[in-house]
């Protein structure tokens, strides 16, 4: 049963991340996602200290604010100080992440988080924190419900804003010309990324969540050319890496999150080499066949 709970939680998180990741990689904002996933840390710690609970509601609120603040700060450094974008991203997220780690160390006694947990989480503890009603009925792990809720929120967000998100992603100029606010949808998307990051935080940590945001959509992107198919392939990959990662970790006795990401990396490598249309080797083989066919045709013509 524990294995089932862990895999299910991981799958729900990977689905949420993958859904948003599809938009991120198409908007060329993968590194902004990376930055946000680091930068929400101080938000979580501060929400912790202010509210005094580990209540997810507070943490998500704090993190969503920090995520939007990060997006704003990157823009601010870029536009106002004319700092090049890559450096603006790098300076902002390392600073906020360092702040978060320092806060954790300073308030080590009060904050129930440690540095390792921040880095790679501990999804193996998911089945230990059960949600039990007052009448004593066991409803299952708490993290599972949070992950489910976040996925629901993300799906509704994308469902409601599908047209706007798609337009601001593929053709921002056209979107602006028909009156869709680019920056509003940008901030909404970043808010959703921050919220998802936090929900995934305890399970997979700050850095591995980036892999969930980027690796399945990037793999799916090599397999298909249509957006709905991209979403579907991402979802399938999310399920596959969660289950595969769990069993790899069980076999090696290592971090489950680390193993999930490793599997995601391996799948990407396979797609990079062997994807039907865009794979490196498939393209090479196709070229060779075409060259041969051409050579034969040319030989036939000469005769």
């Amino acid at each position: 049963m524990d294995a089932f709970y862990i895999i299910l939680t991981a799958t729900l998180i990977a689905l949420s991340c993958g859904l948003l990741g599809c938009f991120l990689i198409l908007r060329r904002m993968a590194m902004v996602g990376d930055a946000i996933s680091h930068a929400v840390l101080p938000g979580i710690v501060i929400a912790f200290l202010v509210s005094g609970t580990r209540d997810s509601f507070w943490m998500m609120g704090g993190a969503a604010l920090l995520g939007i603040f990060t997006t704003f700060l990157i823009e601010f450094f870029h536009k106002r100080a004319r700092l090049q974008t890559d450096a603006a991203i790098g300076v902002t997220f390392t600073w906020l992440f360092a702040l978060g780690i320092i806060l954790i160390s300073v308030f080590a006694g009060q904050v129930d988080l440690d540095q390792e947990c921040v880095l790679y989480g501990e999804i193996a503890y998911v089945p230990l924190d059960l949600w039990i009603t007052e009448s004593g009925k066991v409803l299952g792990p708490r993290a599972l419900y949070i992950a489910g809720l976040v996925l629901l929120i993300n799906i509704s967000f994308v469902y409601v804003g599908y047209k706007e998100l798609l337009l601001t992603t593929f053709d921002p100029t056209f979107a602006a010309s028909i009156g869709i606010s680019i920056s509003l949808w940008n901030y909404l998307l970043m808010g959703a990324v921050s919220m998802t990051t936090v929900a995934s935080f305890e399970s997979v940590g700050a850095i591995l969540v980036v892999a969930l945001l980027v690796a399945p959509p990037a793999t799916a992107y090599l397999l298909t050319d249509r957006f709905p198919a991209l979403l579907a392939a991402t979802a399938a990959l999310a399920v596959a890496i969660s289950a595969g990662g769990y069993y790899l970790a069980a076999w090696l006795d290592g971090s489950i999150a680390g193993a999930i990401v490793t599997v995601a990396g391996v799948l990407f490598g396979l797609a990079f080499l062997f994807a039907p249309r865009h794979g490196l080797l498939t393209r090479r083989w196709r070229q060779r066949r075409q060259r041969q066919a051409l050579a034969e045709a040319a030989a036939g013509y000469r005769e």
Partner: protein
Amino acid sequence: MERLIEFLSFRDPSVLSVTIGAILLTASSAVVGTFTFLKKKALVGDAVAHSVLPGICLAFLLSGTKNPIFLIGGAFATGWISLLLVDKISMRSKLKEDTAIALILSVFFGLGILLLTYIQHSGNAAQTGLDSFLFGKAAALVGQDLLVFGVVAVVLLLAVTLFFKELKLIAFDPAFARALGLPVYGIDLLLTTLTVLAVVTGIQAVGVVLMAAMLITPAAAARFWTDDALHMTLLAATLGALSGLAGAFVSYAAPAMPTGPWIVMVVSVLAMLSFFFAPRRGIVSRWFQQRQLQHTILDENVLKALYHLGEADDDMFRDRSLEQIIARRFFPRRPLRRALQRLQRRKLVQRRNGTWRFTKAGQQKGQRMVRLHRLWELYLSRYLEIAPDHVHEDAETIEHILTPELEQELARQLDFPERDPHQSKIPS
């Protein structure tokens, strides 16, 4: 404070060696970071930094020791591979560079975490302290470690000194470098190698996770103070060294604290101070420059309006009320009053019973503005053949920045004209 004095006296010899080590590591990564920053590849450093973790773990697994030479070797190998893969993915597939970077850094880091936890759970007693690579531990820099990392740092600094000109050239103008016959690919390779080496050494001080800051932040801060690549490099090194010093102090005064985040905090605060307060490029100074320019333009426009009024009734030195000025050319009231007060301070106008009139100097200044405006209008219509009713807007902006030399040149090219395209007189 006491601790700070105690620390700075270096009575404890190990403090001295830790400090020297931390400064060398942070300064050398800042120097290399300057060039990745200038090449706009700052985030590539982040990918390398995360990617050295599996290398360190693999080296430990294979060698069974924490000998720094093995660990550096392993880190170097995976760091290099990661950069190669980022390049391959962004060049050979339809994925963009940012996706490639994020993908490689997170996947390599995940692999590293898997290996690290595998090593920790395997019960190998020698593994303790391997995780100090995550957040850095300057205090661990003693004995053999210090020697090895110190030597690498010195090699880095030497390499940058030797190839400074070449590195500068490929950062700013690779096409020109190629035209000169420089081996651009080779120098690129050198920079890549230096970046990987800088990351490999720097992680001892700040750790894998925050290493990117040591490459990016000092360079970004230094960029705000100078336009010269050499000065920028030296300044970045100084800022890096300062933060290294702070890190050594933290690991001396509060051993429980992770060193890396404090180093990054110090260098980030220095950088943000630079972003805001650096002369010329800083946000505050830029804001002042903009306000200054707005004032100049407004003041000169007011002078022009006064001159136009004088022109209309052939008396330059009559008193004008605010209403008259606004009737001639619209200004919002409060800014107009402020502008007149500024002009009064500069002795260009005089105030009497709430009305304003030119001084002699003010009249001349207004005359010059009108002259510039009309000269430019004439120039546009004669040489660029723009219709006379289209030239006003353009003249309105350029008149504020034309220099006396340009004024003379214009007059000469237009053969010292008397009338502008609207047949108004061009004053001398």
